[in-house]
């Protein structure tokens, strides 16, 4: 598990099959939160934090508790419960210690409980039989990919405010077309990570 | 950048016949309007005080013709704004006011009193009363007095004619400023498309310590005060500070000449050299007109207007204001009146901004007009503040260059209003 494969895992999770733009995970917050740069970065950092925390908690539970006893099918319930609890924990701590960030993010924190990206990362770590460090790195890569897509898309959203699409296209449709063009740009990275580090 | 079209540079100014009636507003300068001290029916003579200064930043108003006061209006019929103005029916004699006595000046206080009494204001177009501008706070050290002979607006040549015909007055005024305000050096800034003026003033400056002529490339907006200070002295006037905070004063060359004339003859600012030009004027030339003369008389003196005239402009084509009627009077700051016809007058219909960046590259104050226009259309006050639209000097370069013919200059003024919450 030397350093090179870790880099591959992270870079491919962040760039090549980016969670939002290529694997369609976490689209709801991605479209909802990225109106300004501040809330986009705030949300992404919170997502990265919760992803890492969730991986750190759920991986040992599955490996040491669920799988040896053959009740692997329970993993969905357990994962969802832990993620929901973690999100609630993060919200309480944020409200207490960082009210500024909470005011920006307050509405979107509960949303992370129903965020596909976090549960997906955790499930993927288990399905791909990553080791503990590998799954942590994979979550970090997924989170960074989410951050990258969010930050870039917040730039486009601010640009979209000056655009005037037809009446029925305003809001969600024009955002979706912009995401389509953005994901086109990400196609360029296919193959780069393997050749670069492979 | 803009074409110069200085057709009337060669014509020496001719005095127009005395108008039948003059219409003198009390507020011909920036600052509070003057208080009227005459009533309907009083008879006045040329140079007699009819409006005294109300506050510190104000300048007195003098009658420019001898005759009887016909009517006093309390509002401006064109804009509807409250504005006191006097209509004087002239008797044609132009008898001078008997109180006109040359007032020799010995110290700074007397000099400033003379400048205030002469009723002179910044004749470059700003119209800020000159006396309060020259009274400096204690301890401000003055490195430069820049006498602004740049006159970069196309068509206008009245400053050029003043520097060529009244070189002695300009020179005397400069000496007065040097003596009483004590700047390290007095620089007369002239654009290189005025060779005659440069040659005359350089002859006078030769050998005099601390006085020199600075020849500038003729590029619009060279004559803008912050741009002039930067180009001549390299100093940048910070946001919100006045020019005196960087040790400079910019004063128009005609203003300096009028100060010198007042001290020499005692005659206040009652008439003014106005360039009459444009594609709809039959014989473009420079004229000397009493203040308050309706511009109709000036156009008739210059052979009248062609019949396809479509636009009348007070001031230059880059910063001047288009007016709807010919009864608007000549005021202290009117340096030119233009009449444009046909294609020149047509205001092009704007098309969508293609973000070509020409306005960003050209703005003398380094602003970003296309982004400011986007922010203005979305009413984003915070973004206007970060783009510092308050630093815009409304020179019109961005709108001049725009290939999509977008009204950027008007957007800038409206953005400033939006920023200041009007």
């Amino acid at each position: 598990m030397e350093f090179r494969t870790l880099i591959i895992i992270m870079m491919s999770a962040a760039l090549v099959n980016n969670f939002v733009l290529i694997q369609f995970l976490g689209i709801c917050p991605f479209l909802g939160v990225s109106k300004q740069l501040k809330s986009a970065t705030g949300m992404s950092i919170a997502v990265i934090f919760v992803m890492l925390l969730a991986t750190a908690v759920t991986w040992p539970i599955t490996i040491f508790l669920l799988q040896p006893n053959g009740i692997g099918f329970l993993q969905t319930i357990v994962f969802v419960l832990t993620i929901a609890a973690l999100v609630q924990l993060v919200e309480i701590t944020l409200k207490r210690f960082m009210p500024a960030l909470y005011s920006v993010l307050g509405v979107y924190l509960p949303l992370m409980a129903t965020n596909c990206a976090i549960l997906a990362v955790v499930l993927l770590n288990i399905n791909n039989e990553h080791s503990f460090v590998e799954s942590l790195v994979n979550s970090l890569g997924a989170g960074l990919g989410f951050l990258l897509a969010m930050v870039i898309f917040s730039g486009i959203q601010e640009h979209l405010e000056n655009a005037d699409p037809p009446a029925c296209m305003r809001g969600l449709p024009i955002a979706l077309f912009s995401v389509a063009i953005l994901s086109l740009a990400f196609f360029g990275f296919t193959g780069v990570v393997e050749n670069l580090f492979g | 950048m803009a074409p110069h079209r200085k057709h009337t540079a060669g014509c020496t100014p001719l005095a127009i016949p005395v108008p039948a009636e003059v219409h003198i507003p009390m507020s011909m300068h920036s600052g509070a309007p003057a208080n009227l001290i005459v009533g309907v029916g009083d008879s006045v003579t040329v140079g007699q005080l009819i409006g005294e200064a109300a506050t510190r930043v104000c300048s007195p108003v003098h009658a420019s013709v001898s005759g009887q006061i016909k009517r006093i209006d309390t509002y401006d019929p064109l804009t509807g704004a409250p504005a006191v103005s006097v209509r004087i029916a002239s008797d044609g004699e132009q008898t001078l006011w008997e109180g006109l006595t040359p007032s020799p000046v010995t110290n700074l206080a007397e000099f400033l009193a003379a400048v205030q009494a002469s009723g002179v204001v910044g004749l470059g177009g700003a119209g800020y009363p000159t006396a309060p501008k020259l009274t400096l706070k204690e301890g401000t050290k003055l490195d430069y007095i820049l006498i602004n002979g740049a006159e970069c607006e196309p068509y206008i040549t009245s400053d050029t004619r003043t520097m060529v015909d009244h070189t002695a007055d300009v020179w005397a005024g400069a000496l007065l400023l040097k003596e009483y305000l004590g700047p390290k050096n007095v620089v007369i800034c002239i654009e290189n498309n005025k060779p005659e003026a440069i040659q005359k003033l350089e002859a006078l400056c030769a050998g005099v310590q601390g006085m020199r002529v600075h020849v500038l490339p003729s590029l619009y907006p060279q004559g803008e005060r912050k741009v002039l200070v930067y180009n001549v002295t390299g100093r940048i006037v910070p946001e919100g500070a006045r020019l005196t905070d960087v040790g400079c004063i910019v004063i128009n060359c005609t203003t300096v000449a009028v100060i010198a004339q007042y001290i020499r003859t005692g005659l206040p600012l009652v008439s003014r050299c106005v360039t009459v030009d444009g594609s709809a004027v039959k014989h473009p030339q420079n004229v000397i007109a009493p203040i308050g003369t309706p511009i109709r008389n000036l156009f008739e003196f210059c052979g009248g207007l062609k019949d396809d005239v479509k636009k009348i402009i007070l001031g230059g084509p880059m910063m001047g204001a288009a007016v709807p009627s010919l009864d608007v009077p000549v005021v202290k700051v009117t340096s030119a009146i233009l009449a444009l016809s046909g294609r020149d007058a047509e205001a092009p219909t704007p098309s969508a901004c293609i973000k070509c960046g020409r306005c960003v590259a050209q703005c003398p104050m380094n602003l970003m007009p296309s982004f400011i226009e986007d922010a203005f259309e979305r009413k984003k006050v915070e973004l206007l503040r970060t783009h510092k639209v308050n630093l815009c000097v409304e020179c019109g370069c961005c709108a001049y260059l725009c290939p999509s013919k977008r009204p950027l200059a008007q957007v800038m003024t409206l953005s400033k209003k939006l920023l200041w919450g009007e």
Partner: protein
Amino acid sequence: MTRMIVSFAPHIRERVTTSRIMLDVIIALCPAFIAAVLIFGPRAALVTGVCVASCVFFEWAYQKLLKKTITVGDFSAVITGMLLAFNLPVGIPLWQAIFGSGVAIILVKQLFGGIGKNFANPAITARIVMFISFPAAMATWAPIPVDAISSATPLELIQRGDLAALPGMWDMFIGTRMGSLGETSALALLIGGIYLLARRVITWHIPVAFIGTVFVLTALLGIQPTFQLFAGGLLLGAIFMATDYPTSPQTRTGRIIFGIGCGVLTVIIRAWGAYPEGVSFAILFMNVLVPFINKLTMTKPLGGIKKKP
């Protein structure tokens, strides 16, 4: 009494108009068009004609449908059509070219509000959509009359590693090599570029920064730097595509950063990416970053003081 026109200062305007600028770009594209017809035969003219016609038609139809002012007169659709055609191999089936024009004009430009409001370059995005949608058609370079030239572009040859089959430098410069319509003849593109610079339609910052970065990086990586300059769509991309007004930054420093970014990404994709040609992906990715570059390189107003928030 005639009613005077009253409008805000300034009352005189420079003669240049948007359609005048676009006409200059079309003139600059003509040498490349002539070279394409000479090298690839009459079908090149057919493909370009179809692209231009469909782009203009889509723009006209869209604006007619939504009752907007018809702006076909500013030739911007014509330019998008020509640039798209120059990015396609000569053997491209016409229905795919029409689909590409539809994507370029409707999806990327008009949906966002017409000229000036789009954030991605229409021609580049359409090329990528077609590159991904029709991989086979976009990779057959041989024109219908198959002649001596081997049917793989220089970049594909480099990627496959058989450097022997690479055409000579002179062929690369003149353009008698495999590649899409407009990108092969370096000579024609350079003539167009110089014309645009002379007419001050584009500034030198983006092309020089873009081509310079590619040259330097390929030299460092040791993969035939001079060869890479003329290969692929670099010249066409740097001179005509990256300098597209609404999708490139407006300040000088912003344009240099944009150029360098495009160069770096192009080399990354060319050296390690799965696709042989990286110019279009690089330009699209940098287009997406333009809002940030504009924010980063805001000009410092004369005398503006950074107010503490």
